[in-house]
């Protein structure tokens, strides 16, 4: 026997048919434990976030703010989805050394056209550089 890590996922939505559908989809994946909660139940939302899930899938709506969730759960992967057409975003915090050299290294990587890759996480998109002013 060996230990199986279980990933915990909270799906927060305003539209239950979106949230519960996605939760059901994710729950079919082995090794994940999914909970779906709607904004109509703020106490359960609070309890789910207090449980520090590994992943929070959150619907863009008046009740939820993906970046606020990321600030509260810095270790979580936050996936920001919408019920209508529009992008889906993944947010993950990346810690870097707190010295100017580290920031400069990142800037130089971007200037060189290299994406900043978070291990096992989403890549920061390449930056289109603004031409230098004459």
């Amino acid at each position, binding site marked *: 026997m060996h230990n199986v890590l279980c990933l915990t996922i909270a799906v927060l939505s*305003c*539209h*239950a*048919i*979106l*949230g*519960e*559908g*996605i939760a*059901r*989809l994710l729950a079919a994946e082995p090794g994940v434990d999914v909970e779906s909660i709607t904004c109509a139940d703020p106490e359960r939302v609070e309890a789910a976030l207090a449980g520090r899930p590994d992943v929070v899938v959150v619907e863009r709506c008046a009740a939820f703010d993906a970046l606020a969730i990321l600030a509260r759960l810095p270790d979580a992967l936050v996936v920001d*989805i*919408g*019920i*209508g*057409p529009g992008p*889906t975003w993944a947010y993950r915090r990346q810690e870097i050394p707190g010295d100017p050299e580290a920031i400069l290294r990142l800037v130089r990587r971007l200037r060189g056209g290299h994406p900043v890759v978070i291990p096992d996480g989403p890549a920061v998109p390449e930056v289109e550089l603004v031409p230098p002013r004459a």
Partner: protein
Amino acid sequence: MSGAQPPRPTLRVMLVDDQPLFRTALATLIDSQPDLSVVGQAENGLQAVELARELVPDIVVMDVEMPVMDGVEAARLIGEQLPAVKVVMLTVSESEAHLFEAIHHGARGYLLKDLRPEHLYDMLRAAGRGETPLSPAVAGRLVSEFRDRGPVRSAPVSGEGPEPPLTRREIEILQLVADGLSNKEIGGRLSITEGTVKNHVHNALEKLHLENRIQAAAYVVRQGMGHRPSPD
């Protein structure tokens, strides 16, 4: 209690929405029901018309606002070409223009995406039985529209003769129809079977020379028979 009920025939459902994430979520939910099955998916109205011709589903669940061809136009074309296929709009749009256009062009129901999944299943089953599934907020707007327009075509008009005698039960059930309740919900409220509710609604429509539940709801409101809205 009685023994096991015979299995319900599977309703073949086609989904049309331009948001793949929502479409997939919806398909996952609907497919979880033993009597509902998603047989196809399309991402715009044009694809929907073509796929409906090919699959001939029982129900098309369709968004309103989509690229290439919107859901209202697609509902019109499907209604013309495949009259047995029931189109139910499922949208975030509470726009009255969308609602009235969709119903006018043949949509058999209009649901908002804020439904709970179990309500959605019930609404789809109701559509399969030939009922008109409407979200409560939408039902209220339709009733207001009919009330503002005045007498409904074919309905008895004051001065043309006595009103048909509705039974007390029929009046009670029509009042609940005007509140936006489905037959199943009415049955639950009055502790009678859904089939009995259906019979009462059918008889009341016959007596009043009305064609559908929406007209019946409008009749109730026009006659001042409706329940008063709650203060909130």
